[in-house]
């Protein structure tokens, strides 16, 4: 029987997430366990992504597995017009697990239904990116010692930010308090706020970044993109309001950490990097351990 795929953040239960985080912790202590020896993992990246792809490939290599795949659609038969179904069914014959990033939304769900091997969604357009969420959860748990009752400040593009939506959904299991800091045009969409209301989870919306850092346990930064604004003048007005500078971290809690899914452009000033509270690069490293855990869990190699 085929093992379960990981397509959306809602596919796994809270208990399963905690299990995966526990496994990731084991892998962090001992990364070079050869659990994937004899396994072939296909990384199908229909659009480029250096960080996620290399993170997965590092994880696979450290576990003793082998990687096959492609890094953009132009180098595969997709450019000849092959359907996704045919591509997936073919690659499933060559591998034990498929990790896919595809700009078309819903592609990972569909792939999981036609593939005879499990699918890990490495990002389907603006829809889901569950492995990012898991590594974010791992980072939060590691730095805070817990996932429960935290003060989470989310900054930047909260309207289109796939990572903040997904992280919000995952954190609802752990009784957080949210502060959303964004330009008016990029506020957290109503559907998420209604969901929080339904669960009785407190949140507030603000526009002043410096003011609200003081109470935060986690500050999760995202990039405000010019392309997202219908009015470019509006973008020009707000583009600098959501930049994190080192001075702004004065007076913040000792346990506070700054997270960012990366790549960053200018929203975290480089003067923040030496600050011990800057956690974003370690966050990316946690991606390797988390992805090891996800793959081993899905393949039933670790329970």
């Amino acid at each position, binding site marked *: 029987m085929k093992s379960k795929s990981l397509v*959306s953040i809602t596919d796994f239960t809270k208990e399963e997430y905690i299990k995966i985080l526990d496994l990731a912790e084991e892998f962090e202590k001992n990364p070079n366990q050869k659990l994937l020896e004899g396994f072939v993992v296909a990384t199908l990246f229909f659009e480029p992504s250096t960080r996620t792809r290399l993170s997965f490939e590092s994880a696979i290599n450290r576990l003793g597995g082998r990687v096959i795949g492609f890094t953009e659609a132009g180098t595969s038969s997709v450019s000849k017009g092959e*359907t*996704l*179904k045919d591509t997936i069914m073919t690659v499933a014959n060559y591998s034990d697990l498929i990790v896919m990033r595809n*700009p*078309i*939304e*819903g*592609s990972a*769900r*569909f792939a999981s239904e036609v593939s005879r091997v499990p699918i890990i969604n490495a990002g*389907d*357009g*603006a*829809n*889901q990116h569950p492995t990012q969420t898991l590594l974010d959860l791992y980072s939060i748990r590691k730095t805070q010692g817990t996932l429960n009752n935290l003060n989470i400040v989310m900054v930047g593009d909260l309207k289109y930010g796939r990572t903040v939506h997904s992280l919000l959904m995952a954190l609802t299991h752990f009784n957080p308090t949210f502060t959303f800091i964004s330009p008016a045009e990029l506020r957290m969409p109503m559907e998420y706020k209604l969901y929080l209301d339904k669960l009785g989870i407190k949140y507030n919306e603000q526009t002043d970044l410096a003011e609200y850092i003081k109470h935060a346990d986690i500050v999760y930064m995202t990039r405000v993109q010019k392309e997202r604004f219908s009015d470019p003048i509006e973008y020009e007005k707000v583009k600098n309001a959501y930049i994190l500078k080192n001075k702004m971290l004065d007076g913040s809690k000792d346990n506070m950490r700054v997270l960012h899914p990366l790549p960053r452009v200018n929203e975290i000033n480089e003067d923040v990097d030496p600050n011990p509270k800057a956690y974003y690069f370690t966050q990316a490293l946690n991606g390797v351990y988390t992805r090891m855990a996800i793959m081993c869990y899905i393949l039933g190699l670790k329970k």
Partner: protein
Amino acid sequence: MKKQKQLSVSAIENGTVIDHIPAHSLFNVINILGLDNYTNQITFGTNLDSKLLGKKAIVKIADKYFENADINKISLVAPSAKLNIIKGYEVVEKKEVELPQMVEGIIRCVNPKCITNNDRVKQKFTIESKEEVSLRCHYCEKITDQGHFEFV
């Protein structure tokens, strides 16, 4: 003057009557059920007065009885439709349509970046809200609401 209570569409001996279709949805109902491919006798009337809907349409299909799964699809466009099952000119059963758990095909996903709009994948939706008749795409997870229904 006695108010006209008789429907302007004649009775059928055996078959199914679909009543209380909003007048503007008549042709969507016909398309959803594929009635244009039927060889049965079909009569319909539209823009008939209705207390419930203002203007309604009614379709009578002779010698045809529908499975619930098939007839429930019309609830997307005619949520208050009423079915009368006719045998020997008598109404032997009255049914209401209800939104199915899952809708396959019929409606296009509103998201242009959805795989159903970019590859050979049939649309599939779960019901997001019965009251608002909104659908959540099984693949891209976006919501297509009644105001944006486009029939495939």
